């Protein structure tokens, strides 16, 4: 019952954040289209006028990936943590250097340029216009490494405590983790997969849950090494969904595939001559992990966008008048605090839903035939 309620709440929240994402995403697109012209004319008219604040660019720079980790901009000085750039191209081979060499895209280094405008913004482009294989430790990858380090540290410490006294009641970090493990095991994994096989999937599902949860939480911390929109990055959610997809497909029983290609209990005309049901079911194999990928990405990105949006409000109003900006900042910051609390809930909820649905898919894949 509880699980169901959580799940429904999650769906509701998901819908809300998707909605808000859609609303905000269209906005900057308009602005981006309108702004370059406007900006040009402003520059033409006033010359050295103060650069106009663009909320769209501001937000998308923060939630997107980058080759350097931006901390603060004071006046015209960007304070960033330079990150290593690793490039491989067939013509030039392997190149490793620090992203500081680009001077925020102002300079070309070893024939590579960091695009700052246009369609390839943020990408490293070779002189001939081709894109090398970019294996750089970008902001997200650095955040990923930090997250991995934190997860390994937490769980190896906890494991040590368990190894020392397996029969003692948990204490410290262990007492923090254990109820979550119990919750995941008894409320999520065991009911979805079944008493018989659930133990086999425990390590993956627990890793998945804590990986998403801890990285979600790290994303809420505004300063490095937190603050990167890691679990709201489509590449990351793609990999996570890919793992679930691979495990589901590899462990699928004969019964699972039979349900897909020859669904029992479905009228024959839906299968022959046009294999409508098999087609739909087969598509379902891919849409399930695809939805996992989109859901996590959209929720976390949506949350980041909302929080950034509230911050932007202050800057937008400050361009009108300072007094207005002070007034708005009070509202903005209170909403931000409120949103951050909601995001804490979402951080848990999304990790929970991803794990819950993954275990449901595993449960479906290994289900025995029953009548």
């Amino acid at each position: 019952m509880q699980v169901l309620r959580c799940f429904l709440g999650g769906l509701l929240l998901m819908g809300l954040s998707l909605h808000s994402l859609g609303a905000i995403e269209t906005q900057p697109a308009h602005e981006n289209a309108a702004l370059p012209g406007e900006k040009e004319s402003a520059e033409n008219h006033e010359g050295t006028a103060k650069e106009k604040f663009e909320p769209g660019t501001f937000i998308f720079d923060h939630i997107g990936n980058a080759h350097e980790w931006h901390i603060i901009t004071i006046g015209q000085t960007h304070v960033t943590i330079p990150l290593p750039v690793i490039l491989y191209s067939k013509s030039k081979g392997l190149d490793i250097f620090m992203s500081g060499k680009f001077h925020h895209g102002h300079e070309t280094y070893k024939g590579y340029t960091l695009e700052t405008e246009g369609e390839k913004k943020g990408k490293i482009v070779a002189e001939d216009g081709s894109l090398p294989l970019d294996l750089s430790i970008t902001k997200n990858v650095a955040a990923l490494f930090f997250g991995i380090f934190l997860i390994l540290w937490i769980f190896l410490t906890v494991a040590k405590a368990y190894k020392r006294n397996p029969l003692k009641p948990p204490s410290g970090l262990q007492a923090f983790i254990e109820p979550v493990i119990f919750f995941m095991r008894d409320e999520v994994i065991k009911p979805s997969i079944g008493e018989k096989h659930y133990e086999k999937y425990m390590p993956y599902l627990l890793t998945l849950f804590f990986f998403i949860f801890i990285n979600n939480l790290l994303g809420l911390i505004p300063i490095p090494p937190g603050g990167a929109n890691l679990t709201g990055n489509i590449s990351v959610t793609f990999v996570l969904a890919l793992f679930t997809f691979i495990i589901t497909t590899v462990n699928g029983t004969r019964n699972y595939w039979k349900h897909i290609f020859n669904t029992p209990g479905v009228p024959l005309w839906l299968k022959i001559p046009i294999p409508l049901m098999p087609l739909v079911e087969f598509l379902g194999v891919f849409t399930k992990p695809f939805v996992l990928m989109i859901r996590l990405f959209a929720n976390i990105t949506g949350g980041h966008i909302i929080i950034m949006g509230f911050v932007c409000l202050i800057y937008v109003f400050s361009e009108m008048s300072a007094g207005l900006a002070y007034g708005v900042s009070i509202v903005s910051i209170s909403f931000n605090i409120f949103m951050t609390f909601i995001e804490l809930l979402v951080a848990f909820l999304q990790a929970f839903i991803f794990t819950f649905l993954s275990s449901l898919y595993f449960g479906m894949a290994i289900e025995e035939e029953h009548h």
Partner: protein
Amino acid sequence: MGLLTPDTGTIIWTFIGFLAVFLILKKFAWKPILHAIKERDDSIANALKAADKAKQEVSRLEASNEKILMEARLEREKIIKEARELKESMIMDAKNLAKIESKKMVDEARESIKNEKTAAINDLKKQVAELSVSIAEKVLASELADGDKHKELIDRTLHDIRFM
């Protein structure tokens, strides 16, 4: 950089990173943690089972103790009853025995008195006879000094004993 287009570099790093985390945690964290949790669950379940068993054992022992106590009480009553009966019978026996013994003694005494009496009577008879014989002898000796008298005596005596 499109928000919705996956980036090869990030995919590769995430794939490697997540796989590494999964494999390391699986071997070094989840294995001992889940093992320990299971072990503890088992030990708690076993302890509960053992406690339940002990409780049953105690109640069983209590019942049996009660039974033993009851039996002991019955046994005691039986023993006391038996002892009482034994006492009664012993007293009765002793009484009977004493009665018989005393009767026997009285009988014996009576017998011996009777015997003594008979003996005494016999003795007296004998002594009287002897005395009378000796008296008779003396009388006879004096009577039979002459012949007639002698004969007369014989006749009288014979007459007395209705010999003639």
